């Protein structure tokens, strides 16, 4: 059994404190009225070259800027919650794959994967809170939620959104969100129960039951991971189309999930737990980080190149807003998420060096955290973005929560899934 060291608990609580403080600061520091917005915009253009100084804003522009400034703390919470929840969910997906495929190498890591997956209900609940607030018009994250958007006689009428209102309407959207989070949580409990039953009696029929549950989850994940990406991310920009977005989100969260798993494993190993994890297991995790970072790079480029080549106005707006307002951050992603993991982990021997695995894992985690922000922010915050105290503070707060939930869940079950029929094979696993 694992016990959380007091220091780690304190660290997690500190991070959560930072998160709460910075999000509170974010909400308190948003401008209260249009005059304040005008003052901020005037101050900003004062630092600009002559041509853009003294630009006059009409009321609609001012209102839009105000909404974007109000969205800033909400976007900070949503991207962090989405990032950690989707990563925990991808760990659950990885876990189910191991069981469904009867993977021999990974049985020693199953309990850790279960523990990380327990962030899904916690982070999912926070996402639900944000979504319900959006539906209640407390923020302006999803502009298709504005009333009258599907009514031809309303000034807010939007033909594109109206055409999608069969799918994009508040009740169905919220129902789906609740079903996702509740369903994933129920399946996590359901699979974990079947896994724990193996510890009590080593019965092959029990393993088959475990496997069936994993397969059922995988089918549900295949559908919900895509629709979840449409609902929570793409619907922020309902005028834009991407046919590979679900895949793209998987490309974002999967290498991050394996990186988180590898770093947690290395941490536990350094504290003397999980002594049965050898460098072959680390090698395999590093291979996943390497391979799926390349998959991410492939999907990123495939999406970019097709839009660049076709040059269709409704498609390129997505990249134009990122190119104009987020250029440096957006292209730093290629370094952190693609160049670092592929170049560092290309050498077979480097995949066994804990420092290099943790280093590229950290690069992938930070890179995809920034990316999650840029998936959401250009549409809801626009030019009024900043990766500052609010955004990083919120992310660190969720990191604290993630650590706290993961390591608390780790104390609930034995660290070694020794009842698993592949335990022995995994323990003596050697690659090369």
């Amino acid at each position, binding site marked *: 059994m694992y016990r959380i060291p007091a220091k780690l608990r304190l660290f997690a609580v500190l991070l959560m404190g930072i998160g709460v403080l910075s999000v509170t600061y974010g909400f308190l520091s948003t401008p209260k009225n249009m005059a304040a917005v005008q003052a901020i915009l005037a101050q900003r253009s004062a630092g600009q070259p002559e041509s853009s100084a003294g630009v006059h804003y009409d009321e609609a522009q001012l209102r839009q800027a105000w909404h974007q400034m109000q969205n800033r703390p909400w976007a900070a919470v949503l991207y962090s919650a989405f990032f950690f929840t989707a990563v925990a969910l991808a760990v659950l997906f990885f876990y189910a794959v191991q069981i469904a495929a009867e993977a021999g190498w990974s049985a020693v890591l199953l309990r850790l994967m279960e523990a990380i997956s327990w962030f899904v209900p916690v982070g999912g609940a926070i996402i639900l809170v944000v979504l319900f607030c959006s539906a209640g018009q407390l923020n302006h994250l999803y502009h298709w939620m504005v009333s009258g958007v599907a009514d031809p006689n309303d000034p807010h009428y939007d033909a594109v959104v109206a055409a999608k209102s069969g799918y994009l309407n508040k009740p169905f959207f919220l129902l789906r969100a609740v079903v996702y989070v509740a369903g994933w949580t129920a399946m996590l409990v359901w699979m974990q129960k079947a896994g724990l039953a193996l510890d009590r009696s080593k019965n092959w029929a029990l393993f088959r039951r475990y496997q069936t549950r994993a397969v059922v989850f995988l089918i549900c994940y295949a559908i919900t991971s895509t629709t979840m990406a449409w609902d929570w991310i793409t619907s922020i920009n309902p005028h834009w189309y991407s046919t590979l977005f679900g895949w793209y989100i998987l490309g974002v969260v999967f290498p991050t999930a394996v990186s988180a798993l590898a770093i947690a494993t290395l941490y536990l190993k350094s504290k003397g737990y999980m002594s049965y994890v050898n460098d072959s297991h680390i090698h395999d995790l590093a291979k996943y980080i390497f391979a799926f970072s390349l998959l991410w790079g492939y999907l990123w*480029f495939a999406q*970019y*190149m097709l839009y*660049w*080549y*076709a*040059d269709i106005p409704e498609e390129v707006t997505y990249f134009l807003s990122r190119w104009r307002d987020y250029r440096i951050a957006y292209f730093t992603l290629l370094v952190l998420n693609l160049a670092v993991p592929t170049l560092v982990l290309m050498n077979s021997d480097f995949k066994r060096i804990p420092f290099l695995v943790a280093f590229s894992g950290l690069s992938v985690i930070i890179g995809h955290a920034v990316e999650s922000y840029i998936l959401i922010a250009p549409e809801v915050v626009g030019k009024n973005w900043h990766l500052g105290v609010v955004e990083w503070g919120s992310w660190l707060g969720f990191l604290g929560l993630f650590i706290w939930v993961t390591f608390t869940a780790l104390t609930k079950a034995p660290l070694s899934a020794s009842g698993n029929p592949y335990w022995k094979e995994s323990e003596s696993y*050697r690659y*090369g």
Partner: protein
Amino acid sequence: MRSDKILYGLYDDEDLLLSAVERIRREGIPIDEVYSPFPVHGLDKALGLQETRLGITAFIYGLLGLGFAIWMTWYMMIYDWPQDIGGKPSFTWGENMPAFVPILFELTVFCSAHLMAVTFLVRNAMYPGARAANPHPATTDDKFVMEISVRAADEPQVVALFKETGALAIHLKNPES
């Protein structure tokens, strides 16, 4: 060391073969060669073979392919017959680069893989018409053969080791014959 005889041990299981290789090397007897119908996982480590340098050549060939692809796309699409790519007639290689990435990628992989395979064949003298070097035809089917050249004095020890480690059959060959 001049060897008098060559001994062949025939095995029919890869795990048995692996443990036999480890055992015999522990006894300090050098193994000349192991013939196998397929790559046995971990055999290179067990035999203590030198790390292959094919990876380095693959990297060099990849760079070569990348360089060739850059030159080729520039020559064909920009210099020799300038093309309007995706309605963006800039006629510079840099601004049209995204369109060339698939070609750059494919030629890198193509050159890396093919030239590496060719290097492997040349390095192992596996040119067309080369005579098979395996001592026993079963090594192309489902058997494994370990080859050890010994001096006459060591022969009984090696034979005993072969028997102990579960060899199916032991053959003896005099180099002179």
